[in-house]
């Protein structure tokens, strides 16, 4: 079953994606079909199962707080489209 237009627009906003009207229609349909397929998971009883989010038994990997060399500011900011005064320039936020 296809998603509603409202649902698609809501998700697109959360995902920070501008979609054309065509894209909204197409995704409503395609995402609906995919979600129908993944609904298969409901067949499995999993109330007593712990989620497995990480395969390895590794926890809280820390290191000593020692300074190490980093790339320079120039190198790090070299790929930005708009830099001013050593800062990234963006449109008004508030």
């Amino acid at each position, binding site marked *: 079953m296809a998603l509603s237009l409202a649902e698609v627009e809501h998700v697109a906003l959360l*995902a*920070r994606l*501008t979609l054309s009207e065509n894209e909204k229609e197409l995704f409503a349909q395609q*995402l609906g079909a995919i979600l129908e397929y993944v609904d298969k998971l*409901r067949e499995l009883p999993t109330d007593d199962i712990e989620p*497995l989010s990480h395969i390895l038994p590794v926890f809280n990997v820390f290191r000593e707080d020692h300074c190490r060399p980093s790339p320079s500011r120039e*190198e790090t900011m070299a*790929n930005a489209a708009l830099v001013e005064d050593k800062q990234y320039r963006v449109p008004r936020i508030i």
Partner: protein
Amino acid sequence: MELYELTVHQLVNLLDKGEVSSREIADSILDRIQSVESKVKAFLTLDEDRAREQASQTCRQAGGFLQGIPYGLKDLFCTRGMRTTCASRMLEHFVPPYDATAARKLAQAGGILVGKLNMDEFAMGSSTEHSAFFATHNPWDLERVPGGSSGGSAAAVAADEVPFSLGSDTGGSIRQPASFCGVVGFRPTYGRVSRWGVVAFASSLDQVGVFSKDVRDSALVMNLIAGHDPLDSTSVNLEVPDYTAFLNKGIKGMKIAYPREHFGPGVQNEIKQSVYQALQWFEQNGAVVEEVSLPHSEYALPAYYLVATAEASANLARFDGVRFGLRDEGADNIIELFSRSRANGFGAEVKRRIMLGTYALSSGYYDAYYLKALKVRRLIWEDFQKVFGDYDLIISPTTPTTAFKLGEKLGDPLTEYMTDILTVPVNMAGLPGISIPCGFAGGLPIGMQIIGKAFAEGTILQAAYAFEQSNRPNQKPPLGVN
């Protein structure tokens, strides 16, 4: 034989004996690329001058194991000073300020980076048709896909454009194209190779691996790239054995399981027959071979497409036009800046997966989708644990079909996702797996998948090598020369 046809170990041998120079190898490789690349289209970025210069200056005696050996990297690996696009318009002009650890290790070993290889955009796809730039063609049949997402990496090795390449495997993106292109593709255990500098798709599933012409080369490159990396907190602090030491141990007494669910009606008959024959070979040569069940197999793909897309939606949130990547110029406010930059920078498949992942994580749906998928993930992992309690290896076909035609699966996303049905369970369980050539169907390569216990890469290579030595395909792709 031409130099470009040789394996890494054959080239190393010639270099060590002084019978050939690095410059001759580089010239042979670059000439080969010139003659076939217009047909294969494996490379996004090619730096011939740099390769030739490095080859001329390289000194075998002074250097590391790979001194003088050319290779390619999937364009997902950050390479300092060399454009890294992830096959996306979002990063079309991105030049990383640092090297991925795996890339750095190969460079430090003296390898000669020839260029960056085509892929599905941000590693999302199974055909390399989702590259924002162009599709790569399967060297065995130019009208067919090489597989994906590491299609360029697989095709380049199959076409003898490089002796080996690196790729990444999140749901099968090394093993599936290796199967389609008739080469060896190895995905190590999650955590075995550093993911630092490898642009993230799904952080609990991604792993770096190798494409090569034979199993020995796979072991040699694994020796170089495996190991703990303080820059990757998910990399394990486990010693790296010499993987080549496993190669001649043979298979007598090995216990091999084959899961009935992986030989079902959805798998092409010739593929099943080919793998059954391989299983017979193992049995005739001293292994114990038995059928088992991985009962939750059919749930692996749906669970994967929830976990992977959810993680992808988080990982791709960084592409907002601010610090790097495509930036929309006409935005009036910050939300528009993000939304329009992303709309312009991402292709359809990437957008689709971000949308799916965002939905699965969103309030009201998180439990039913993402959390549910993680619980199913544990069931899949437990299936494997049970089988590996009694067996050393699991063998199955790598893919349900041979390489499909370009354009064939573009209409319906789900039909393309289905090609990963035999590979994704391995990623969900974090296990290592290799695909090696084991036959042909209608002139197209068939791949056999060998899955091992966590950190048992050596055992996989041991079995793969034994099979390969007695069952080497003698064919090369019918590429011809311009």
